[in-house]
């Protein structure tokens, strides 16, 4: 993961309901930036062992840290914090609404460190702040195609312009599946290192239908038709049917679609006028799920019969 100079302003954490910030201290410094995607609990850093503490990382004080600092005599506490502060942490989040002595908060204030208080447990706080920060810091890539949630799977439908992706997407929405974005999707790696696709704000909920123009999905199909983001499980590449080309007849080929350094399974579907694309895609997804959960393929079936 690359550190970025841009960073995330600390105040943006206040707008994330998941992180559940209840109180803030030293608000003057909320405009400072977090420049490292990892969230840390300082732990032994407060006792003087500073190795492996990232600069620019958000620091989380759980029961251990607050308890330890509160138990120290003022002079010791100052010494302990001096080391910690020399690493210039952008902000401290306190978990489980633990209380820090006002004197400690004041020392942090002098050193331009804001303090946020959340009611979440440390473990939950770390996982939620990480997922928020990873979304921001991760390498991003924009890809043309339609991203949908079909039977719980994140499916990216690709194909040349005009092959009928948007129309297929609408049929799939009518069948009860959900759309993330039509046309252009932004992918990033989440905190599990898996590619996740997200709509682009300026064109969310809009879908182009040749002949009609650009229509609003939410108006047509309701809020249930859309999802904000989805982990990518499978890519379906539609290509126009070429009679000269040899297509996979036995399902032997394993194709992969490279994205952000990961390989995602892919099926190539030849498409011609009159093929029922939405049903074909649903079946492809069902087949994908059945293969993932270990059911045997036709070739495996033949091999077993032979034995």
């Amino acid at each position, binding site marked *: 993961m690359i550190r970025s100079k841009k960073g995330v302003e600390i105040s943006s954490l206040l707008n994330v309901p998941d992180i559940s910030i209840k109180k803030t201290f030293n608000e003057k410094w909320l405009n400072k930036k977090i420049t490292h995607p990892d969230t840390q609990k300082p732990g032994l850093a407060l006792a003087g062992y500073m190795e492996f503490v990232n600069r620019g990382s958000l620091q989380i004080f759980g029961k251990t840290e607050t308890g330890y600092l509160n138990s120290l005599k003022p002079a010791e506490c100052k010494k302990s914090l001096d080391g910690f502060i020399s690493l210039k942490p952008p902000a401290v989040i306190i978990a489980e609404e633990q209380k820090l002595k006002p004197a400690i908060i004041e020392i942090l204030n002098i050193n331009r460190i804001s303090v946020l208080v959340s009611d979440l447990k440390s473990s939950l706080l770390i996982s939620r702040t990480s997922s928020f920060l990873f979304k921001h810091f991760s390498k991003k890539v*924009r890809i*043309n195609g339609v991203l949908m949630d079909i039977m719980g799977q994140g499916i990216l439908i690709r194909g040349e*312009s*005009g092959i009928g992706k948007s129309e297929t997407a609408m049929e799939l929405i009518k069948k009860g599946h959900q759309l993330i974005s*039509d*046309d*252009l999707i932004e992918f990033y790696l989440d905190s599990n290192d898996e590619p996740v696709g997200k709509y*682009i704000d*300026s*064109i969310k909920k*809009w*879908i*182009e239908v040749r002949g009609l123009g*650009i229509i609003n999905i939410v108006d047509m199909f309701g809020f249930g038709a859309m999802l904000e983001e989805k982990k990518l499980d499978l890519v379906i590449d539609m290509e126009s049917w070429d009679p000269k080309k040899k297509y996979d007849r036995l399902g032997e080929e394993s194709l992969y679609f490279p994205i952000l350094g990961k390989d995602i399974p892919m099926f190539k579907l030849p498409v011609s006028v009159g093929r029922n694309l939405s049903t074909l895609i649903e079946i492809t997804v069902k087949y994908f799920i059945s293969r993932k959960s270990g059911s045997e393929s036709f070739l495996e079936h033949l091999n077993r019969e032979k034995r």
Partner: protein
Amino acid sequence: MEKEKIKITNKLGLHARAAAKLSHLANNFNSNIFLIFNGDKVNAKSLLGILTLAASVGNDITIEAEGDDESKAVSEIKGLFERKFDEES
């Protein structure tokens, strides 16, 4: 592959109507055509894709085409930009 950088000169930049003209023109070619702006690369045949660029007057934008009619595609698209999308006389 053909590539060319051009400046947007029409007052409104790549707004909806201009983007519609551009994607309409791009759809006439077999080549894969892309617009590159600010590190984003979008398919020139996709209207919504072009709109996400939010490119405005004075910005430099790169046209990239690959296919059997790539040079014709780039020169005609360049022409459309130079004619200011036929919207200002």
